[in-house]
């Protein structure tokens, strides 16, 4: 095997796998905290993608890295608000089971 560097595809495949694991966790978890963790996993997968593209395709301007910084910022804000919502949900329902949060269901 004679490679000049790690191929771009390797990073893309890692990020695809991580994203799909995140979606599976999002769909199947019953604990609300785990749903938030799955969202963080998916955001990280997107970040890996952006970083790989910025390093391999746009390696002079690296706009992908700037986008990653913004995604990290938004993810931090999302985590704070999400966990606050979770706490107030827990105060009202005394459970973190996703199946019991059905107030807006028809």
């Amino acid at each position, binding site marked *: 095997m004679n490679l*000049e*560097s*790690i191929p*771009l595809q*390797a*990073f893309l*495949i*890692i990020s*695809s796998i*991580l*994203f*799909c*694991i*995140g*979606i*599976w*966790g999002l769909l*199947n978890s019953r604990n609300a*905290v*785990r749903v*938030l*963790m799955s969202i*963080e*996993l998916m955001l*990280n997968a997107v*970040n*890996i993608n952006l*970083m*790989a593209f*910025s390093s*391999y*395709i*746009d*390696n*002079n*301007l*690296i*706009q992908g*890295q700037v986008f*990653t*910084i*913004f995604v*990290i*910022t*938004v*993810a*931090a*804000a999302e*985590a*704070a608000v999400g*966990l*606050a919502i979770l*706490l*107030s949900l*827990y105060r*009202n329902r*005394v459970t*973190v*089971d996703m*199946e019991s949060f059905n107030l807006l269901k028809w």
Partner: protein
Amino acid sequence: MSIAVTTQIICFSILSLVIIVGALGVILLENIVYSAFLLGGVFLSVAGLYLLLNASFVAAAQVLVYVGAVNVLIIFAIMLVNKKEDLNPIDNLRSRRFISTSICLTLLSLLIRVDLSNIWGLSDPNKSIGEESTIRIGEHLFSDYLLPFEVASVLLLMAMIGAIVLARRDVMNKDISTGLPVDQELIEKSSEPLLIKKN
């Protein structure tokens, strides 16, 4: 990157193995505390991947923000809501699992096919700015990305205030406009105190 290619490949393999195993652990383990700590491991390995991609600043930001803030926040939330509870069984769990797993696998195969079949227009590695990326990020943030950068600060302020408003316990007991007492049941369901003395 100044490291030899073989070393890079070894580091990449170890990091991706940790990422995938850790992510599977996050979503599959029964105990949510283990999940939270594994999530920290996944974040650290992602930061390692960023280092392999010549992005030391973003790697540092990843460690500081994700491991230092988000993960700690998640662990705090777990400590606040971690109560042993017996979940009611849901019907047709098996078909739900089947459908969601097949959706995820289909999406995965689609993504991998796109990754492998597309011809990416790779740029010349000699033009790479390499270790200077931090300088370039600073230039971006204060020239063409100045507006998003400033909006991000407003967003963080909004998130902070919003989180405090959502999570604080005391609520108004009087309607501001009419002065009538508020039905507390609407705002907060009366329940047993969450912290019960152990004795």
